Structures are given as structure tokens and as C-alpha cells.
């Protein structure tokens, strides 16, 4: 045990503390080398790659439909967004029409998984800050959202639901019934969660002015998603380059002011509220009809394609090459990788006790960083 640690210190000089990757419970393996001066962090180096699965290589040579369950495992907290990126890209180049009902179902499920991902992030934040009451209330709400996702797709975390040209199965009447019940109670319970994070002075004073990200750093490191919007910049793929049915639905994009941890919390809380209103509008406008267009000659396709969507962590982009119905190349640009680099800039000048709080406030999914 000691030999390995001494070797690590010899390799990287000038760092005082090493936080090991297994130190953080519940799926967060990132190691941190920290350099200190008078109790203040002057340099930090994240050590990642503990979860490299090589999805991009495993998928090569597979048929189009069979690759979808593997692409699920890229994002652990909202697995439906990489699926959607993959399918949207293929539909665009091969000119497959998607039925209108399928588009509505896709949007509703994407927003549901956005809510579940943000609630998981709130749970982790409560765990780090030590608010045990709020942790249990967050998990209670998350269970209900996951139950709805399971009712529609058949699995809690890895749905394998979206197909090229539509979705796999139709929504049952029981789903809409249960969604109405959930919707009534969720508004009330979510206001209760707000009192814990945004009104309680103990939490607000802790998060305020903690881990401020400068606008110049954010632009150099190409940050996207809620972390960029916390700076006050209004950028969202759902509005700038619309896909699906987002142009038929009216919703706001919450923004922050200065880009500290409290602003990130406010932006994500606002996004949960907007997502619930998007889902209720989608159910109100949803038409009847087909859910999938079948294409016979899917095995003769070949070409290159690109696509990008807004996933809960930021902008997720993919580049796919297909030769006679088989994948020859797949590249994924994940937003969490840029967020991890942004964390290493934002943490400079803070004390060691706040490292964990700032790291969780950036919402980093390690499955996405390493792939």
C-alpha cells in the first residue's frame, strides 16, 4: 500500500495533498492533486481515467439497432439523451420522417430524465453540505420520477427506448393517469425543497461567492449547459438550433448573474420548474397516431453524420460513420470533460474544505468524462 503512494508523490512534484479516487462514495472516481500556500489552493490537477470503458471501440462493427444499449451506458444519470443524439443524427442524413406523436413522447421522456438527473445532483449536494433531511426528501421525489420513466420504457436507468424512426412502444393510459397524480404533488413538494436550499441562510451563506468562474475561462474552455448559464450567458441548443418539437412549446431559460455555486443551484432549480411545464404542454398538445416508421433498407445505408442536443450536463455531440448498415466510427464529445477542466480553474484561491462542495456543484458525470 505504501509503495504505490510514495511512487505517486515522486512522479508529480510540487503537490502537497493527494485525494484518492475511492474516497468519494457513490460513483465519483476522480483523483485530485492539490498544491497549497498558506492554506489556499494555488494549483490543482484532476486525475481521471478510472472508468475508461472504451465504448467508442466496442461499438465498431455493430449493426445500427444493436448499438443503442451500449450508447445508453455513456451517461449514467440520464441515459436517454445519448440515445436521442445518435438517432437524430441518423434520421437527418438518411431522411427518415419521424411521426409527430413519437416526437412528443421523446420530448416528454427527455425532460423527465432531466428532472431526475438534477434531483440526483441535489441529493449529492445535500450529502456534501450535511443536510440529511433534504437528502431524504430529494430521494423521495426522485423515486417517483424514476417510477414514471420505468412505466413508459421498462427500465429505471437504462431505457433502450428510442429507435431510428420513432420510439419502441406507445404510452399506456395508466402512464398519463399517474403523471397527473405526480404533477399535482410535485409542485408542492418542490417548493418545500426550495426552502432548504435557497431560503435557509446557513446554506446560502456557504454557497455564496464560492468557486466563482470567470467569463474568460468559460469561453476558453468551451463550457456549455447550466454552468455557462449561471454566468448570465443565454445559450441553449434547444433554442439556438431547435430539434424535435421545442419550437412549438414556450419556455424560459433561467440564467444567473456572477457564476458562483449559488447561481448554479438557482439555475438548476429553475430548470426543473421549466421542465415540468414543458412536459405538461407536451401532453396537452400530443396527437394520436403512429409511433414509428419502419425502413426496410436499413442495412444498405452508408454515410457520415453529426448531431448535437442539450443534455442535463450541457451540449452532447456525436460524429458517426456508417458503412452498409454497420458502424465504422463513433466519436462522442461530452460536456462533463469541459466542466471538470472548468472546476480546476474555479477552485483556485479557495480553502481545502470547500473542494468537495465546488466539485459537486459543477455536476460532473464521470462515466461521460472517461467514456
Amino acid at each position: 500500500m505504501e509503495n504505490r503512494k510514495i511512487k505517486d508523490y515522486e512522479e508529480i512534484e510540487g503537490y502537497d495533498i493527494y485525494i484518492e479516487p475511492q474516497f468519494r462514495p457513490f460513483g465519483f472516481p476522480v483523483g485530485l492533486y492539490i498544491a497549497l500556500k498558506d492554506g489556499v489552493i494555488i494549483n490543482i490537477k484532476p486525475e481521471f481515467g478510472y472508468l475508461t470503458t472504451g465504448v467508442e471501440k466496442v461499438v465498431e462493427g455493430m449493426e445500427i439497432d444493436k448499438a443503442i444499449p451500449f450508447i445508453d451506458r455513456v451517461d449514467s444519470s440520464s441515459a436517454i439523451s445519448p440515445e436521442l443524439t445518435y438517432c437524430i443524427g441518423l434520421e437527418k442524413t438518411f431522411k427518415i420522417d419521424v411521426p409527430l406523436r413519437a416526437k412528443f413522447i421523446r420530448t416528454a421522456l427527455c425532460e423527465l430524465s432531466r428532472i431526475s438527473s438534477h434531483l440526483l445532483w441535489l441529493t449529492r449536494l445535500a450529502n456534501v453540505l450535511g443536510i440529511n433531511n433534504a437528502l431524504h426528501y430529494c430521494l423521495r421525489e426522485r423515486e417517483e420520477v424514476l417510477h414514471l420513466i420505468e412505466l413508459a420504457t421498462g427500465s429505471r436507468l437504462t431505457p433502450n427506448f428510442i429507435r431510428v424512426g420513432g420510439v419502441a412502444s406507445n404510452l399506456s393510459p395508466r402512464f398519463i393517469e399517474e403523471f397527473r397524480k405526480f404533477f399535482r404533488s410535485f409542485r408542492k413538494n418542490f417548493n418545500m425543497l426550495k426552502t432548504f436550499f435557497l431560503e435557509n441562510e446557513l446554506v446560502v451563506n456557504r454557497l455564496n461567492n464560492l468557486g466563482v468562474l470567470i467569463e474568460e475561462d468559460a469561453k476558453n474552455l468551451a463550457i456549455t449547459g447550466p454552468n455557462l448559464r449561471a454566468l448570465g450567458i443565454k445559450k441553449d441548443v434547444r433554442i439556438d438550433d431547435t430539434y424535435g418539437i421545442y419550437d412549438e412549446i414556450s419556455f424560459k431559460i433561467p440564467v444567473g448573474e456572477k457564476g458562483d455555486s449559488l447561481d448554479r443551484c438557482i439555475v438548476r432549480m429553475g430548470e426543473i420548474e421549466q421542465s415540468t411545464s414543458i412536459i405538461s404542454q407536451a401532453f396537452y398538445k400530443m396527437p394520436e397516431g403512429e409511433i414509428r416508421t419502419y425502413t426496410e433498407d436499413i442495412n444498405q445505408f452508408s454515410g457520415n453524420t453529426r448531431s448535437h442536443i442539450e443534455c442535463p450536463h450541457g451540449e452532447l455531440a456525436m460524429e458517426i460513420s456508417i458503412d452498409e448498415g454497420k458502424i465504422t466510427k463513433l466519436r462522442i464529445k461530452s460536456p462533463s470533460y469541459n466542466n471538470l477542466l472548468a472546476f480546476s480553474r474555479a477552485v483556485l484561491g479557495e480553502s481545502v474544505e470547500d473542494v468537495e462542495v465546488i466539485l459537486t456543484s459543477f455536476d460532473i458525470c464521470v462515466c461521460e468524462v472517461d467514456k
Partner: protein
Amino acid sequence: MKGILRSLLTVIKNTFIRSITVLYPYDRIIIPYNSRGSIRLVVDLDTKEIICDGCGECVNACPLKLISVEKVSHDKKIKNFYVDISRCLFCGLCEEACKKDALKMNFNYELAERDFSALRHDIDKLTEYAKPKVKEFWKS
């Protein structure tokens, strides 16, 4: 100060609402009808025979090639059917591919085993749910 008192008040309010905990081993959580658990083979209730005829559609559909079928030659019956549960993704592609509805994912999720070889399910285990239990046998 006001915020701290308000969050304390919500905690006190929440102690009086009904508990949502499910006492799991005695009382089960209701899981949706389309939830995906382990695989089983469908048995015709009248004739007590397995519907599957060994066409091999599901073998080709599985992305990891976990299913294998042994067929009796010149007959529409199968001798054995293996599924390797230890590596299964629970993706449901094999269920989608079967055109005769002979393969279904059931509600069973309690799959923990001490023995590694027990995770390779054969035909006895896949049709276990349809066999008459001992108690029912003596009653009838």
C-alpha cells in the same frame, strides 16, 4: 434566521405525514407490467408444451450472443435452450425479435446466487414458473 425557522417548520410538518416506506421482504413494491426482469420461455397452458420452435431469430438479435438453442433434427422441437444471465444487458431486443411471442421478460429480479455456474440458465430453469408446485399437486 427566518429561513432557518421555516425549514425547521417543514421538517416538523413532514413528521406527521403518512410514511411511504415499503417493508420489502413482507410487502412488495408494485412494479409496472412492462418492467424487464430475467428471461423465461412461454408454455402453452392447454397442451403444456413450449411454443418455441428453435428458429434462431433471438440468437441473431442479441448484441452479445448470449442465447444458444439446441434443436432436434427434422422436428419442430427444441432439446435445450441456454441464456447466460451473468452478462445480460436486460435490453429486451430478444423479446422484440421473437415473432411467435415465445420469449418474455418476467418480473423476477431476485437473481442473487452463490455459485457462478448457476447464472447460466437452462431449459428447466426457464420454464420453472409453469411447473406444478408440490402443494398444489396434493390438493388436486
